[in-house]
């Protein structure tokens, strides 16, 4: 009797990680940075040498020393500790605002595309109009009414940021709606909600995942910009953007390192998030499946490289 070979069993998650490391070295670096951010954020209390925002007035504006690894700022706070606690703030804001944006964008875009007709038209007009309103204005209004705070910041950034991705989601769902299985589901009496949940959502899942990881970088950048302008986190909360803000500028001319470290860490974190999001997209996008995700086959590319005779280009 012929014995049929069984396909090798493999764990999807492990296989994904192997692919990540093998094919996307830069993406792996990005993933490591993201993990480092999460680690610093969760274990900030144990990692930071000094408690959050602790002031040592007699040690103001010190250069790096044994006591203060990166020096102190104009109030005598240890810069390294501020950066670690700032990581926690960035992590919280980044993850929650992005989660809110993703959920809202899916609901708005997906339902708008599914229900279609007048509902779609009206919702799209509102989305268009809302996209033109400056987010800063809404944020100021909310802050003036309710006061400054982390929750307000997350809510406003999450809601205002949902309108852009909702359009992408809408076009994706419109494309999926053309498929025959959607029609078939409708024919057997599938409700809209069930259709959305069980048929549409799994097909846009990769887009959601990629969008999420890319948006985190954007939200962290946005929060830093707002804190830089003075409208972000409440004063006293450590934030990388706030450490770079204009009020500290006069002290920066005395101790330039004040401007270097927060910005550097901010850039590295956002860079890591973006790289990871990119690598994720390259790995998960179904259009790039069934190959190595390249436009030419490996053999042809290798041959061309050899013919050209240069190793760098």
């Amino acid at each position: 009797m012929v014995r049929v070979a069984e396909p090798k069993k493999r764990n999807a998650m492990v296989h994904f990680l192997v692919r990540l490391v093998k094919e996307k070295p830069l993406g792996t670096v990005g993933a490591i940075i993201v993990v480092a951010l999460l680690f610093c954020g969760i274990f900030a209390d144990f990692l930071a040498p000094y408690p959050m925002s602790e002031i040592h007035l007699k040690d103001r504006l010190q250069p790096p020393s044994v006591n203060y690894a990166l020096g102190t700022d104009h109030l005598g706070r240890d810069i390294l500790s501020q950066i670690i606690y700032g990581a926690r703030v960035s992590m919280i804001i980044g993850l929650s605002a992005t989660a809110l944006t993703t959920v809202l964008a899916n609901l708005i875009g997906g339902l708008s595309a599914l229900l279609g007709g007048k509902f779609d038209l009206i919702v799209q007009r509102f989305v268009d109009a809302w996209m033109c309103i400056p987010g800063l204005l809404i944020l100021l209004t909310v802050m003036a009414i309710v006061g400054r705070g982390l929750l307000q910041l997350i809510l406003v950034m999450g809601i205002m940021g949902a309108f852009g991705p909702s359009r992408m989601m809408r076009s994706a769902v419109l494309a999926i709606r053309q498929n025959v299985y959607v029609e078939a589901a409708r024919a057997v009496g599938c409700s809209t909600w069930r259709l959305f949940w069980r048929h549409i959502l799994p097909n846009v899942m990769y887009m959601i995942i990629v969008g999420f990881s890319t948006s985190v970088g954007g939200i962290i950048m946005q929060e830093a910009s707002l804190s830089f302008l003075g409208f972000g986190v409440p004063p006293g909360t450590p934030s990388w953007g706030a450490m770079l803000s204009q009020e500290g500028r006069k002290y920066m001319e005395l101790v330039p390192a004040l401007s270097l470290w927060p910005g550097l860490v901010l850039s590295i974190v956002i860079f890591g998030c973006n790289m990871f999001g990119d690598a994720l997209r390259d790995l998960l996008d179904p259009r790039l499946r069934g190959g190595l995700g390249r436009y030419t086959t490996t053999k042809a590319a290798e041959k061309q490289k050899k013919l050209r005779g240069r190793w760098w280009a």
Partner: protein
Amino acid sequence: MWAYATRRMMLLPVTLFIITITVFGLMRIVPGDVVDLIMVQMTSSESRSREEIIDRATIEHALGLDRPFLVQYGDWMGGIFTHFDFGESLLSGQPVSEMILERLPVTLELSLMTVVLSFLISIPIGIYSAIRQDTLGDYAGRVFAIGMMSIPNYWVATLIIVYPSVYLGWSVQMEYVHLWVDPLKNLQILAIPALMGGIMSTGMTVRLLRTVMLEVMREDYVRTAWAKGLSERTVVLRHAMRNAMLPVVTMFGGVLAGLFGGSVIIENIFNIPGMGRLSLQALVQRDYPIIAALNFIFSILVVVSNLVVDLSYAWLDPRVQYK
């Protein structure tokens, strides 16, 4: 095409109405308004006797702030459409249209310079990255692109201002010189801010151009060009690049519209008297007419530039049709 354009333009008033009414309403809800600021100014600047200190209600009445909301809104919109009068600044009394006209050329110039510099840097890198795919040059290009998208431009601007002044004794010019006063000095002053403002869009352009170029290079007409024996330079520059530019132009339209809204951060850091700085000042001081006017102009610019970009697509690519 004209039918399409007209239909799109018909939606402009609706969008405009929603935006302006929302902005108008929001500014009224915010407590701590400009009247308080005026009163503080009055009581602290000159000493007045008790009887002369004007109370809050009089100020409000003089500025027209005690009328019902819809009346104020109607008055403002009427003023705009009849004689382009956007009202006066509540704080300084200067006509808003005057203030905007003063600052508009500056912002326009800065935006144009930003876009041009960004173009000049990103296009060669993007094309190179695409035609040498998966080589070291390509990786360098991609890292550059994502790096540009990740670095906050205010940080680089701060570094550029702080470090040279501490270590080299050279500082960035903070006094603005208009274009018609001294063109060379003006361009010098705007060069660094323009570079800073364009950092993010440079990164986005390199990525976009690389993606599109990769697709275009696999098209049939490019393959024909190779088969004809044309040099790489001709194929890339004359045949591939033209078609790859379309989405890039689209993106730049959007970027330009956003820049018109005022590169608030850059103008603040480098002390450039443009619309961005005006809008931040007005937001903080709750000067409603300025904010409403800036928003109005910005909304029109965004909607019109979206429309122009869409229409230009049909002009640039003969295959695109409009119903």
